[in-house]
């Protein structure tokens, strides 16, 4: 198998958490491939932002979508060809700001795709403005006197919306992250993985995360427990918060008959009238 790294020059800042995500994704895809998933059946969509650049670096098929819309695009891909494994790379501005609606509806529908959220707590690519996950008080170019909004909690928001698989990883814990991604992609239904991703240029959270992350011991007993852990004030827990099996959208809306070729359509119409 090829090493999944394209020949494109990588322009992430040195030390950016995106490198860890990139490594974990490659590792996970390798595992999937070893388990028998053809590379041809894995596709990605990505939003616009530093996170989206993974599109250029990861050597698999996909769509470099519009800012905020990659998850809508991904849903179209999946519905059109359910055999594909569809992975979306989103930013916190991208997927919880501009594209929040698509994220919550994909969860509600239990679309069988995976959203990997590069949570760097800011809009990296557009020079560090506050994002929906920026802390209260965060100073960026659009909030020079400090962000006045409290951040969403991505995990509990997605739990609330109905995501059937919800997890959190940390870009610096590549193996752990790769494992989570693997389960997320294998999960039948909507899987959401928040990745804590330090942004060395605008929101360097390495120290914070190194000190304040901890692995979950086990799957929380229920959603309430999961939510409480997601909102813990001391620790940012890493691991799987929720994993349930629920019917998936593309199967629920599937017609009783398969798609017809054009001659069959002609026949149908001729008879129909």
């Amino acid at each position: 198998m090829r090493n999944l790294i394209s020949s494109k020059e990588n322009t992430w800042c040195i030390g950016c958490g995106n490198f860890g995500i990139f490594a974990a994704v490659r590792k996970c895809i390798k595992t999937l491939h070893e388990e028998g998933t053809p590379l041809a059946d894995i596709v990605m969509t990505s939003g616009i932002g530093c996170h989206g650049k993974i599109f250029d670096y990861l050597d698999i098929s996909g769509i470099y979508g519009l800012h905020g819309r990659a998850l809508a695009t991904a849903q179209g891909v999946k519905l059109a060809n359910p055999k594909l494994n569809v992975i979306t790379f989103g930013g916190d501005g991208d997927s919880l700001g501009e594209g929040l609606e698509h994220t919550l509806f994909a969860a509600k529908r239990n679309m069988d795709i995976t959203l990997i959220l590069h949570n760097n707590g800011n809009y990296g690519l557009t020079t560090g403005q506050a994002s929906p996950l920026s802390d209260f008080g965060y100073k960026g170019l659009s909030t020079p006197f400090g962000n006045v909004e409290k951040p969403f909690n991505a995990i509990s928001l997605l739990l609330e919306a109905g995501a059937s698989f919800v997890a959190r990883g940390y870009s610096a814990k590549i193996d752990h992250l790769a494992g989570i991604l693997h389960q997320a992609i294998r999960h039948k239904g909507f899987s959401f993985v928040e990745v804590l991703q330090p942004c060395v240029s605008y929101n360097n959270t390495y120290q914070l995360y190194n000190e304040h992350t901890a692995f979950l011991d086990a799957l929380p007993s229920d959603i309430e427990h999961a939510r409480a852990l997601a909102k813990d004030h001391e620790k940012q827990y890493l691991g799987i918060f929720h994993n349930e099996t629920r019917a998936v959208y593309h199967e629920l809306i599937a017609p009783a008959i398969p798609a017809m070729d054009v001659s069959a359509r002609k026949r149908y119409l001729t008879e129909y009238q």
Partner: protein
Amino acid sequence: MAQKIFTVLVGGKAGEGIKKAAQVIAHLAIIHNNHVFQTDDYQSLIKGGHNFSVVSMSPSRMYNTYKQANLVISFDSRSVDEHKGDLLEGGLHFCDEADVRDDTMIPLPLAKLVKTHYPEAGNMSLASIAIFCAVMGISEEFLKDTIAREFKRNQAENTSFALAVYQLVNQLDLQKVYELKQEQSVASKFYTGNQLLALGAWAAGLDCYFSYPMTPASSILHYLALKRDQLGIKTVHAESELAAANMALGACFAGKRAAVGSSGGGFALMQEAFSMAGMVEAPLLCFLSSRPGPATGVSTYTAQEDLFFALNQGHGEFPRIVASPDSFERAFTLAIELMNLAWESQSPAILLTEKHLSESATNLRLDISKVDEYQLAQPDSVNYQRYQFTQSGISPLKFPGSDSATDDDVIKWNTNEHLESGFRTDKATNIKLMKEKRQRKSAAIDSLSRKYRRVEVYGKGSTKVFAYGSTALELREAQKYIDFELVVPVYLEPFPHDELAAYRGKEVIVVEHSLNPNFARFLKEKLEIKVKANILRYDGRHFDAGELVNAIREAIDA
């Protein structure tokens, strides 16, 4: 010369089944070998208010309904007032006995009969079917069967109520003004414009339809959703128009034919995605069915205000296709054509239409011969490049997960400016080359589209009248009374310069449903026509044939 035409107008409150009754009347006319046209005038409310449906029928093809009716049936006093002026000489106006204003109305004890025949809420609108049958001399038996077939609930009550009305009208011994039963058999399927658009797109391979409801486009979604298991089609009522359009682009990437539909407001929300279609070269088919704007505007009426909006959708420069069906037949075939053109040229296409076509209905036969087989070349796998430079600007398509795609294929669609490989670029030379590649498709689209009828000319006469979209239908109805040459560009982009060369610089009349003479301005730019007169209507209502005849005569005499 106009053949005998008979028009029925049924008026009443929303939620009373007016439209359904009119459809049944249309159906009865069709079974008796009439051509029909049906329109609905309704407001944005669910119950109450004032709705009316009109069915015009004749032994020859119908292109519109008439406001002046031979038979008016009013179910409430508001209808009586609204439509008492709409009665043709010698026509009949039935209403409830309580609503009679003067002796031009024929009173019937409708409210009483409903009370007598139904224990609970009754279906008043059946009375219009009964009246129609009685007036036309359709047998009691036939009426009974029709009611039983069309209305499944309260069958016994329906029948006894309808027959009671029928008998009352029969006793009136009315003079027959129209012979319903015609010799020549007619196409008997009854379609709305939206159904034809849906079927056309489906005939051309539609696999997924993504939409968010918006009048007058919603019924495309409703129709396809309902036919899921017959057509094998997927429909998604998305969270918004933005979602719908971006989903459709994903479906294209996966190799499936997809479409979206909305009206102006929803379409405004799809502009970024439309621009994306231009950039990623996605064959996105869009139905844009107009209503009066701007903003929320007037949701249930017709307009052609979105011409320039449709032609200039999306930021940035990229080739696109815009065409507008001038007839119900074309609604079906144009949906096929645009789907195929979109895929052949990998460009977004807009099928621009109006409420008047979307929601009106007529009888016709689908031209199945227009359904093209299509095949996409499957490029081989060695170094597949999504945006490979070609002379035509069209690069071979390959789909992830398709049979021809292997693990070595990396298929990259990119909203950023990109290289042949699909990877992003911001290098000056690369930007230039890729822009030029996309631009070359304009010529390709033009030549591909020539296999279709891009311009239609109806009738003859020294007076030349230009129109597009369903305005052409209104004019064809007018042609029953006055001679002129009706010229209809079906394709607006690419503009069919060659087919229209003969009209360059000519003096013409332009008819359209907008406040500004937009279409005329468009024709001036493209064809340097001289506008003798603009005939404009912008109150949401369709033109009546008589009104057009007068306006055209006036323009000629001016």
